[in-house]
């Protein structure tokens, strides 16, 4: 019945509805700066009308629901792009570090050190008798070696940093999966009791956004909430349950990622990490850092071996009186197979050692010849051949030290010099060489040269006559010729270094550009989402006014109803 009572009733419902509207508006205003918040709106409906004469009569307003304004498809698209952005951003920040490690355009990079090294040989070639020039060569060699070792340390450090970041990101991903599972439970409970879980859904969306930034995920909604599937199709979240990812550092120094099944078994998914920050960091380690480490290693090896090979048959100002080599693991094993860094580069060949008296200039007394057969000749054979050579006559004492080093000592006040070694055995044994070590990890200047820089050879003795001349500079010239020799992948060492720096520059600039572009794509999408779901204060103010006016009007309605009721009561007096 449409009586005064119903006017009061309608008024009361209207008051309630407008109040609710103001509360929703207030909630929006309060969350204007909240990350991931979607604005909410109150849905009002007319109440079910009453049948009456002459027709149905309305019974006022009802608050039907509070909805969040959210574009599901925009959210999906954004999450895909966030994965790509995550991987690109991670990569470009590490490329910046790599570029600064290589510092290719500064005047203090490895390229400059190499140039200084060759320049020092240049100086020695023009003054092969010089002492200062030899110190110059030694210092330049030390600089090159320490620069290479430093670079390696920095690259390894970067790899460790990548691994740490990957582990932290995995922890975060696991936390997010567990959050999503928790929210699944809460949302199901809330919505099961007929409520709108707007804010909880916002929180779950936000967690998924962040997860998508870390790795490529796929997800869909079931009646139990979101199911999330990670890289390689492994389940991360299913309703109230979640599974975690873990990682281990392999022997290669690279991080490997596993999915932990319910039974605790580890399933490797390293190769399946696609887009996302974790995948981006993994690939940078696998592809870029490993490649640069490998290149640095090969560059060092070629530098060590080629310089040493030239120098093993060089001579200095005076014949040697004593030379000690690198230790072998077992003197009775073939040289090619006794733990020498460059043992496998030994080939069949012949070693010639000339013996001299103590005069100035030194007079040649005889030539000792040693045959080397790759894979057969042992250090002991080598020593025996020297000792038993008829031309030796006790002038050159060869022995093996307790540590397994070849020890050559001149006897009787004379000296010796090496005029030929076609086998490379002496270079591998580090007899009369500049560098020691096998690669970027352990490259250094040999112990003997550290103690006495005069041992650096610049000349050669005549193989046929044994003529010894301190003014000869042929060895220095041949070391210098290495500067332009294609030692590494068809390029000189300096070129190889320049190519490495330039190649990295190309990659880095590409990475920055793509990351920049992806930033803009994500920005665009976020703007679109913000345009749909974000809070506009002006709009909320207008709504506030609307609700306020409606509230005032409803109050007036009740006031009018009250007056009418009063009139009725007066009448009855």
């Amino acid at each position, binding site marked *: 019945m449409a009586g005064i009572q119903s006017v009061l009733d309608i008024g009361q419902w209207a008051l309630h509805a407008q109040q609710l509207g103001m509360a929703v508006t207030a909630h929006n205003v309060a969350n204007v700066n909240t990350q991931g918040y979607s604005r909410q709106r109150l849905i009002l409906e007319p109440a079910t009308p009453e049948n009456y004469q002459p027709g149905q009569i309305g019974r006022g307003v009802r608050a039907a629901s509070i909805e969040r304004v959210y574009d599901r498809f925009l959210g999906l698209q954004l999450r895909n792009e966030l994965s790509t952005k995550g991987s690109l951003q991670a990569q470009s920040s590490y490329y910046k570090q790599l570029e600064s490690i290589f510092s290719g*355009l500064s005047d203090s990079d490895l390229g400059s050190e190499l140039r200084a090294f060759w320049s020092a040989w240049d100086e020695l070639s023009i003054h092969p008798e010089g002492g200062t020039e030899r110190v110059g060569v030694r210092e330049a060699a030390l600089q090159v070696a320490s620069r290479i070792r430093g670079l390696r340390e920095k690259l390894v450090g970067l790899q460790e940093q990548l691994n740490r970041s990957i582990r932290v990101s995995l922890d975060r991903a696991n936390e997010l999966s567990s959050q999503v599972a928790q929210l699944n439970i809460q949302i199901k409970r809330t919505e099961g009791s007929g409520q709108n879980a707007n804010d909880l859904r916002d929180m779950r969306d936000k967690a998924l956004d962040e997860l998508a930034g870390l790795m490529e995920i796929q997800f869909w909604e079931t009646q139990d909430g979101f199911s999330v599937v990670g890289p390689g199709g492994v389940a991360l979240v299913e309703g109230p349950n979640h599974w975690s990812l873990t990682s281990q550092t392999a022997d290669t120094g690279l991080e490997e990622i596993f999915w932990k099944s319910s039974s605790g078994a580890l399933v490797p998914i390293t190769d399946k990490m696609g887009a996302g920050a974790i995948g981006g960091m993994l690939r940078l380690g696998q592809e870029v850092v490993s490649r640069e480490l490998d290149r640095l290693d090969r560059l060092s090896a070629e530098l060590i071996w080629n310089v040493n090979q030239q120098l093993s048959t060089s001579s200095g100002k005076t014949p040697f009186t004593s030379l000690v080599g690198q230790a072998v693991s077992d003197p009775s094993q073939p040289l090619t197979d006794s733990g020498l860094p460059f043992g496998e580069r030994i080939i069949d060949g012949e070693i010639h050692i000339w013996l001299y008296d103590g005069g100035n*200039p030194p007079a040649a007394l005889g030539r000792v010849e040693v045959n080397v057969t790759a894979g057969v000749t042992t250090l002991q054979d080598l020593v025996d051949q020297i000792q038993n050579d008829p031309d030796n006559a006790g002038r050159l004492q060869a022995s093996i030290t307790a540590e397994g080093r070849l020890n050559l000592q001149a006897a009787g006040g004379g000296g010796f010099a090496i005029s030929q070694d076609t086998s490379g055995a002496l270079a591998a044994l580090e007899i009369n060489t500049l560098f020691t070590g096998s690669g970027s990890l352990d490259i250094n200047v040999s112990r003997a040269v550290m103690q006495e820089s005069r041992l650096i050879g610049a*000349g050669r003795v005549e193989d046929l006559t044994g003529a010894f001349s301190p003014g000869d500079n042929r060895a220095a010239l041949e070391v210098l010729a290495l500067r332009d020799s294609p030692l590494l992948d068809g390029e000189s060492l*300096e070129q190889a270094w*320049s190519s490495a720096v*330039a190649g990295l*520059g190309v990659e880095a*600039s590409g990475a920055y550009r793509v990351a920049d572009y992806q930033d803009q794509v994500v920005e665009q999408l976020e703007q679109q989402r913000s*345009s749909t779901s974000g809070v506009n204060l002006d709009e909320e103010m207008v709504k506030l006014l609307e609700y306020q006016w409606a509230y005032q009007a409803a109050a007036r309605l009740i006031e009018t109803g009250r007056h009418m009721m009063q009139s009725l009561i007066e009448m009855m007096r």
Partner: protein
Amino acid sequence: MRVSQKLLMESTYNQLNRAGEGLLKLLEQASTGKRVLNPSDDPVSANRIMEMKNELSRIDPAKRKSQYVNSWLSMSESALQNMEEVLVRAKEIALSQSSATATSQTRAGAAVEVRQLYDQIVALANTRLGDRYIFGGTQSLVPPVERDDDYQASFNGNEESIEVGVGLGRKVAMNVGITGLLRDNQVLDTLRGLIQGLENNDPQAISASLDGLDSGYDALLELHGEVGSRVKAVEANLENLGDLQLNLEGTLSDYQDADMAKLLTDLANQQTAYEAALRTTAMITRLSLIEFLS
């Protein structure tokens, strides 16, 4: 499009960020004067810059070496010239003392002078640059020529040439051996014969030395000419190196250095853009319905 508060703020923030980033980049370029600071700024130019630097790094050492070779050769030249004068004087003596007017006294006096001339030749052949005997070939640490009391010469040097790179892929032998001239051309033996001829008052022996002196003088001139032509080559090389250096430095600068005029204009523009962004931000933040409702 519906504009939310967040959208408004985020886009102003992004704009400010971008304008600031551009400004920073230009400031970096302006303060270093370089256009390419990291290889990624311009990978192609970076590659060229490294090539140029590689080339340039070879020029200074090459110049230094050329100068060293030059001083070595000049020293050889003047020593050879002095030897020529010595031989001319010896020939004068031989001529005058082989004539009938010469007496045993004048010859004895002349013998003393020729002994000195002999020693001068030996001293010149043993000329040193630093610790090195320049005429000794690769046997550079012992005097190439020594004589005993009987003016018999012994030789320690060799005729090996010491080749050094002087840049631009050129190699120059910086030394000439003297052993060939003094021993094989018998210059010292001839002088010894002259001394003996003078001391023995033997005009025939004295005039016999004239041929030897002549052929020695000719050989000396030939050697001198060779050294002279090498000096010229090295000097030309030095000039080439200087030209190349200028050239490379110019190209390097083209690739590497910032165009200051353009950079400063860009900087002014970027500054204006940044200021504009700041101003709009200030304006936008004041625009709200809240300001007008009271």
